[in-house]
């Protein structure tokens, strides 16, 4: 589904990704861990097509297409979703309005008709119930005045409505209380399927207790320095990151 090879990128003249290699197959869940500032969010944003990041080397294919040549909105319509680490507030723009516009943009690209307003409302009500969000969020501005945890829940809600092929969730588990973590995990698990893939950027094993990954990677200094199965995350939780770097140097 996603194949990243030797990807390097810089921002503001600074080299942040220094040769990332990663292959994610349909049906898989991958976790990316790594110290603060190692480039996890940068990788996520480069994949999503943020223009401030300049790709200096390497290639990325998404379902066989050259991802890097596609504009951000084209990537989204092709089924790539990014759950932001810091979801932005857009004052005055209705939360549901944005989501409807997003869904319709995707449907239009796929040659499908626009979603019927009643159908859409029914759909979103159902998903909100699943995410245990109050209907008050229907009428509020996009993330406007949402608490940290509410913003993350809203990201997962959007993901569930848009049903992406590839979801990249950047620390969607950070800042969640224990109940919310369960809700979010259930949400992510409900999206798992043979045709889809999920990349979780996280600092914590606890998410991975609920959403069990097929592979775990450590990103450090802008590249993946170690990969393993779910036990790698458990080991990182116990031992921290130092031993990974040391064993690499050795």
């Amino acid at each position, binding site marked *: 589904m996603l194949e990243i090879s030797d990807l390097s990128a810089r921002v503001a003249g600074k080299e942040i990704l220094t040769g990332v290699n990663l292959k994610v197959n349909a049906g898989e869940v991958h976790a990316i861990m790594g110290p603060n500032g190692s480039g996890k969010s940068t990788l996520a944003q480069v994949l*999503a*097509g*943020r223009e*401030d990041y300049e790709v200096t080397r390497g290639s990325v294919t998404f379902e066989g297409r050259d991802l890097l040549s596609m*504009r*951000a*909105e084209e*990537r*989204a*319509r092709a089924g790539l*979703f*990014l759950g*932001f680490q810091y*979801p*932005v507030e*857009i*004052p*005055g*723009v209705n939360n549901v*309005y*944005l*989501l409807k*516009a*997003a869904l319709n*943009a*995707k449907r239009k*690209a796929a040659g499908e008709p626009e979603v019927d307003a009643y159908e859409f409302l029914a759909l979103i009500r159902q998903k909100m119930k699943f995410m245990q969000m109050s209907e008050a969020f229907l009428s509020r*501005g*996009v993330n406007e005045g949402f608490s940290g945890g509410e913003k993350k829940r809203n990201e997962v809600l*959007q993901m569930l409505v*848009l049903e992406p092929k590839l979801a990249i969730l950047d620390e969607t588990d950070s800042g969640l209380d224990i109940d919310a973590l369960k809700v979010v995990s259930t949400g992510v698990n409900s999206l798992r399927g043979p045709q889809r893939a999920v990349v979780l950027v996280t600092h914590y094993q606890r998410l991975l207790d609920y959403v069990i990954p097929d592979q775990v990677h450590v990103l450090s200094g802008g590249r993946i320095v170690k990969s393993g199965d779910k036990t790698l995350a458990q080991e990182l939780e116990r031992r921290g990151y130092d031993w990974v770097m040391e064993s690499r140097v050795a």
Partner: protein
Amino acid sequence: MSTKSQEVEALVGQKYRHGFVTDIESDSLPPGLDEGVVAAISKKKDEPKFLLDWRLKAFRHWRTMKEPNWAHVHYKPIDYQDISYYSAPRAPANAPKSLDEVDPKLLATYAKLGIPLHERARLAGVAVDAVFDSVSVATTFKEKLGKAGVIFCSFSDAVRNHPDLIERYLGMVVPPTDNFFAALNSAVFSDGSFVYVPAGVRCPMELSTYFRINAAKTGQFERTLIIAAEGASVSYLEGCTAPMRDENQLHAAVVELVALDDSQIKYSTVQNWYPGDENGLGGIYNFVTKRGECRGRNSKISWTQVETGSAITWKYPSCVLKGENSIGEFYSVAVANNYQQADTGTKMIHIGRNTKSTIVSKGISAGHAQNTYRGLVKILPSAAGARNFTQCDSLLMGPQCAAHTFPYMEVKNPTATVEHEASTSKIGEDQLFYCLQRGISAEDAVNMIVSGFCKVVFKELPMEFAVEAQNLLSVSLEGAVG
């Protein structure tokens, strides 16, 4: 009669004859401005003497005045002798014969605004059949309004049919000597609108100048006068949303609102005069004086404006809050793109006790535009317990535009409360990327973010206008980002 005024009469008569020679042929006066021209306009409209005297007084005062230069706008000096002060609608011979002859770019804009086809033709100046001229529509309005006792007519009709009201109220709020452009307007105004809502009457419909678009086309110096008597209320919509295609054309209108005890006037504007092209060529110079006076206690005047057009906008709808407990409101969205310059804001003058004012201004700048908010909140010693809340937000799109905010405050009564909030933000790269990542196109994303920014003002507009305003906004900002 003094010799002085005899001279004037003589001069007037002479100029008048001269003026009308050309007039008969082309139904317009030659460029130039003197007392003869002022008199010729008055004569042409068959005005009573008090109005001619009033115009001449204004003209004589105007001659002693200097054009203001304090606004944050720049333009080549206007040659007031090079302007024609009376001109009838364009001769059909020059007008395009069908839509095929009209600039397709203009038509595309109309289409985007959702203006019906026959309306588009009319706006573009196509010589169309009079059926489209909404005469019947106007008549049904007139009947309904007449039953309620509401007078709603052109200014010229009001001068003819209600000279007493004109004599009593004209210049009450904006005296002919008020400022350079108001004085000029007072001397040469061609037509405009008049509204009188009698005591205790709620005007049964929104009044709008939309269907009188043809009049607006010729009227560079319109005059509007709205009077709400005791306990009356009225909502008035102004605005032809037609972009005008003329070269730098001067538009100096005056609007006066008078609110008596317990009355309410809501005045909404969607202004979309031609702003000039992408390079700053052409466009309207919009120098407008708008002022409302809450004369009576518990009266309320509310200005809502969405300004997207004009090359230069110089406009400060104001409220003079004389009556006890009276309320003034100003809600504004001003958009400036390309090389547009907007200097707009409001003045709230608190005179009566417990008067209250609210100012919400949203400025959007894109391209090379300059967008200035200029506001004055003045609380006189008599205005015990007065309150004002001001909020000014600016949104910048791109690196070359600028926003300026000049909030002036003069508080002369210690019991008054004045609050001010201001913000300037760039259209968030983060916000834009968030929308793009959800599959929304850059254009739609910008529209969405900007509409969100303006929402509190749009909420104040009557329903059908809000939709139009929103469409207008997206047309004005087309290509501003991405």
